[in-house]
């Protein structure tokens, strides 16, 4: 049973470019959340997708957008990259049936983005 898988694992971009990160949730999970983790910090919530719609959003600008597909996989897009966007981007999946307030989140290993 595959857990949460993310791709790519590492990538380097330059300022102003655009990036797309991908996530496949754990089997049986229908909800995907994205987090940004800067070096030495805890993860920060970007947004959450369920039933192909953005359900919650953290304090991130519109340059950050996402999508969820019918098979529950998800993409995170970041436009007009800034140096400060360099971080580990984590995808986490969960199941609505478990109950969103106490259900376990399963995290992927993350995509390490470096913006030069």
């Amino acid at each position, binding site marked *: 049973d595959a857990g*949460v898988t993310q791709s790519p694992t590492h990538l380097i971009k330059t300022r102003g470019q655009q990036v797309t990160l991908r996530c496949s949730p754990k089997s049986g999970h229908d*909800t995907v*959340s994205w*987090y940004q983790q800067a070096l*030495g*910090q*805890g*993860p*920060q*919530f970007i947004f*959450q997708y369920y039933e192909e719609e953005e*359900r*919650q959003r*953290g304090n991130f600008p519109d340059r950050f957008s996402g999508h969820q597909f019918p098979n529950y996989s998800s993409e995170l897009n970041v436009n007009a990259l800034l140096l400060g966007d360099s971080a580990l981007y*984590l995808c*986490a999946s*969960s199941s609505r049936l478990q109950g*969103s*307030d*106490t*259900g*376990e*989140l*399963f*995290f*992927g*290993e*993350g995509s390490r983005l470096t913006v030069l």
Partner: protein
Amino acid sequence: TQLLEQSPQFLSIQEGENLTVYCNSSSVFSSLQWYRQEPGEGPVLLVTVVTGGEVKKLKRLTFQFGDARKDSSLHITAAQPGDTGLYLCAGVFQGGKLIFGQGTELSVKP
């Protein structure tokens, strides 16, 4: 604004010592979770505490949720080098959104 304050941020101890990590907030959470993250990996859930005053044990780890559901602590007894890692507390808001603390980097030396 950092809703969850973890302390200490860094902790370096010898094998066999005990330690406590604190997680404090001015907000009330429906539940609070503790995660452990190793380099190059995503966080892994250790425990979820839901009820004020709740105490949960996981082998040598003891987790406590404050009576007012605003703070929590993680106590490790007889730490081992395998306990080394980043420990994160996270408040759970309705809908499953997590607010993480900045983490406690623990290093246990043999």
